C-alpha cells in the first residue's frame, strides 16, 4: 500500500469521525442549536410546487413563542377542546410511560421504551390526521394510540405479554399493532415500515381511496436503505404519504452527527428527492399539528409526499436497557432549549385562560388514577413469566399464524411441544 509520504506532492489524507460536543463530565452545550423566532417562518400554499418549500428545510416551523403565545402563519387556530385534548393525551402518554418503565424495573416485563419529551410528535400529529388515515410508527409513537383512544389496558397487556395481549405474547413489549386504530404493527427492524407506508399509500391511490399514510422514522434510522426506497418511490409515484423523521438527536449512544447531521438537516433530504420538505419544532404541539395538516392537505390533493423533520430531543435513555449517562452529559435532557412539549402547551392554554393550575393538577391526578387502575386490570391478566413453564399463552398458539393454514410440519412440531410440556409438568 502506498502511503502519503511517498508522494510529497500529494498530502496525506485523514478520516473524519464525528464526535458530539459534550461527553459525560463535560457541560451540556446546545450553543450550536439555531432557533428561529416563533412565527418567523412563512407558510407556503400546500398546493405549491415542492421547490417552494425548500428554504424551509434549513429553519424551524415554530408557533408557540417563549411566552406561550401562538404566533405566525402556521398557527393552526385550534379550538379550546382540541388544545385541551392534545394536552391531556400528551400528559397521559408521559404518565403511562413512567408507569410502564417502573413495571419493567419491577420485573413485570422484559423491556420498555419511553417517548419522554417527544409526546407532541405522536399526539399532535395524530390529531392532525383523519382518524382512518394509516400510521406506520416506530416504538416512540405510542402517543398515536392514546390520541386514537386505544384501550390503555390492552396496551399494558401487550407490554406484559399476558393473556390479554392481542398479539398473543409474540412481540417485544411496546411493539403494538391495531388495524382498527390505523396503527401499523411495529417492527423490531428499523426503517422497514417507511417504504411499506409508501406502498400502502400507493395502494390507496390505486384504489381511488381517500385515506393517506403517515410514516415515522428516527434520525439514526434514516441511514437504512429502506428510507431511501421510501423517498424514491414516494416521489416517483407521488404517493399520498407523510414521511416524518423524528430527529431526537440520538440513536442509542450515537449522536445525530453519525447519521449525517453535521452536514445538513434531515429535512434537506426532501430537496435531494425533489419532494416537499418541512423542518418543525417537534416540542411545539401546534407546529407539529400545523405541519402535519399542511402535508395531509397536500397529499389529499394528489400532490404527493412531504418529508417532515420533527426536531426534538430524547430526554431519557434509549430504553430500559440503556444508561445514557455513560455517553452523554447527565442532565442533557433537562437543558434542551426547546423545552418540554407538555409544559409549552400548558403555558399556552394558561395564557389563553383556557386552563389553570388546579385543573392541571386535577387532570394529572385523574390520569394517574386512570393508568393505575388500568394497570390493575391488565395485571389481572398476568405479567411476563420468564422462569417457570406457567406460560401466559397456551403453547399451542405458538404454532398458529405462521401461515393461514398450519402445514404438516408445524402441526407435527406443535404435537411435539405439547408432549414436551407434559413431560416437563411431571
Amino acid at each position, binding site marked *: 500500500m502506498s502511503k502519503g509520504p511517498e508522494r510529497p506532492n500529494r498530502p496525506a489524507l485523514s478520516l473524519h469521525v464525528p464526535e458530539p460536543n459534550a461527553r459525560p463530565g463535560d457541560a451540556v452545550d446546545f450553543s450550536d442549536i439555531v432557533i428561529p423566532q416563533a412565527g418567523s417562518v412563512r407558510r407556503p400554499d400546500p398546493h405549491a410546487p415542492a421547490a417552494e418549500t425548500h428554504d424551509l428545510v434549513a429553519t424551524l416551523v415554530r408557533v408557540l413563542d417563549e411566552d406561550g403565545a401562538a404566533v405566525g402563519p402556521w398557527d393552526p387556530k385550534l379550538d379550546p377542546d382540541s388544545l385541551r385534548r392534545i394536552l391531556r393525551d400528551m400528559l397521559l402518554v408521559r404518565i403511562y410511560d413512567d408507569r410502564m418503565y417502573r413495571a419493567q424495573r419491577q420485573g413485570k416485563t422484559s423491556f420498555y421504551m419511553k417517548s419522554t419529551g417527544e409526546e407532541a410528535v405522536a399526539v399532535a400529529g395524530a390529531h392532525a390526521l383523519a382518524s382512518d388515515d*394509516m400510521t406506520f410508527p416506530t416504538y416512540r409513537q405510542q402517543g398515536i394510540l392514546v390520541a386514537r383512544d386505544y384501550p390503555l389496558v390492552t396496551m399494558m397487556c401487550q407490554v406484559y405479554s399476558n393473556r390479554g395481549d392481542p398479539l398473543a405474547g409474540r412481540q417485544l413489549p411496546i411493539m403494538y*399493532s391495531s388495524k382498527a386504530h390505523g396503527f401499523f404493527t411495529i417492527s423490531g427492524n428499523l426503517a422497514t415500515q417507511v417504504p*411499506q407506508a409508501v406502498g*400502502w399509500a*400507493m395502494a390507496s391511490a390505486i384504489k381511488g381511496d381517500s385515506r393517506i399514510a403517515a410514516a415515522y422514522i428516527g434520525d439514526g434510522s434514516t441511514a437504512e*436503505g*429502506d428510507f431511501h*426506497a*421510501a423517498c424514491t418511490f414516494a416521489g416517483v409515484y407521488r404517493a399520498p404519504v407523510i414521511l416524518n423523521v423524528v430527529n431526537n438527536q440520538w440513536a442509542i449512544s450515537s449522536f445525530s452527527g453519525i447519521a449525517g447531521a453535521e452536514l445538513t438537516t434531515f429535512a434537506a433530504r426532501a430537496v435531494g428527492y425533489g419532494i416537499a420538505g418541512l423542518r418543525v419544532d417537534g416540542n411545539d404541539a401546534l407546529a407539529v399539528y400545523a405541519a402535519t395538516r399542511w402535508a395531509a392537505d397536500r397529499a389529499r390533493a394528489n400532490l404527493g409526499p412531504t418529508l417532515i423533520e420533527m426536531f426534538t430531543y430524547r430526554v431519557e435513555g434509549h430504553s430500559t436497557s440503556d444508561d445514557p449517562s455513560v455517553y452523554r452529559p447527565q442532565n442533557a435532557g433537562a437543558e434542551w432549549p426547546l423545552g418540554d412539549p407538555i409544559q409549552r402547551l400548558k403555558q399556552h392554554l394558561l395564557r389563553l385562560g383556557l386552563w389553570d393550575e388546579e385543573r392541571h393538577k386535577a387532570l394529572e391526578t385523574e390520569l394517574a388514577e386512570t393508568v393505575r387502575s388500568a394497570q390493575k386490570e391488565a395485571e389481572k391478566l398476568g405479567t411476563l413469566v420468564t422462569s417457570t413453564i406457567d406460560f401466559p399463552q397456551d403453547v399451542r398458539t405458538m404454532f398458529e399464524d405462521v401461515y*393461514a393454514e398450519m402445514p404438516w410440519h408445524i402441526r407435527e412440531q406443535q404435537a411435539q411441544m405439547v408432549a414436551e410440556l407434559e413431560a416437563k409438568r411431571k
Partner: protein
Amino acid sequence: MTVMNMIQALNSAHDVMMARDSNVVALGEDIGFFGGVFRVTEGLQRKYGRTRTFDTPISENGIVATAIGMAAYGLRPVAEIQFADYIYPAFDQIVSEAARLRYRTAGEFTLPLTIRSPYGGGIFGGQTHSQSPEGLFAHVAGLKTVIPSNPYDAKGLLIAAIEDEDPVLFFEPKRIYNGPFDGFFDRPVTPWAKHPKAEVPDGHYAIPLGKAAIVREGEAVTILAYGTMVHVALATIEAEGVDAELIDLRTIVPVDIETIEQSVKKTGRCVIVHEATRTAGFGAELSALVQERCFHHLEAPVQRATGFDTPYPHSLEWAYFPGPIRIGTAIRKALED
C-alpha cells in the same frame, strides 16, 4: 386449451387473475410498457392500465417493501424480481417483514403477496444471472416457495400463489421458459409445443400449493426434483434405463411429505436433485426428512446430485450444471449395495 410456453402460461395467469380481481397488481423493473425482460407481463399494462402494471425504480428492496404495504392495504401484488440473483437487496423485507407479519400481529395483518423471479442457469448468464436461492427461503418460517417445471403447472401454481393468503416466492426456471431442457446441451433444443404439459387451459384453474406430482412411476429408486431438473432427471432416467419414480415437488415449502414418504418406502432408495449449491441447500432438508421418516426402508444412503459449492462460472456453465452424468452417477450409487 392453447399450446403455450412457460412465458405465455405465466402471462395468462396474470391476465386471468387481473381480470377476476381488481386488487391484483403487478410491479417490477421493466415490467410495464416493455413487459419484462423475459416478457412475462407483456400486454398487461395496455390491458389493465398503468396503475395496475407498472415499472419500478431499481430497488428490489423498495419493490418488496411497497408490495408489502400494498398487500397490507388489501391488494394482491405480484412483484417481479428481474433475476433471482437480485433478490438479496429485498432479503430483509422478505424474511423480517413479509414472513412474519401475520405471526407478529396474530393474524391482524396478512400478506397475500407473490414474489416472482426467474432462477437457475443454463443460459450463460454467469454468476449473477444463474443462481438458485430457493434453499435460503425454505429456512424462513412464514414463506411458501413454489417452483414450476412446465407451462400447465406454471399457470396453475401462479394462480394458486396469487390467491394464497400468505407470501409466496415463485421461482421460474428461466432455462425452460421457451422449451424443456433435458441437460444434453450438445443436442438441439426442443420447443414446448411438443410437450403434453404445454396444453394450457385459457381460463382460471389452480394447482394446490404443497402438492407434488409424480412424473414417472417406478420401483427401483425415488428421484426428487423441481424446476429445470425435472426434465434433466427424466432424460437421465431414460438414458440410464432405470425404473425410477420421478417426483416433481412443485412446492418446496410446505413440501409434499406424504408423496415423498410413500415413494421412498416403496423404492427404498432416493436421489435428490437440485441446481443450487450443495451445502445446506434444500436437498439437505429433503435428505434429512427422508432418512428420518424412511430410515428402516432405506437400502442405500440418500444421494444428492446438485450444483457445486462455488459461484456459477460463466465459461464452465456445463461443468457446474448438474447434468445427466452427475445425476446418473448418483442414481447408480443409490442403486449400489
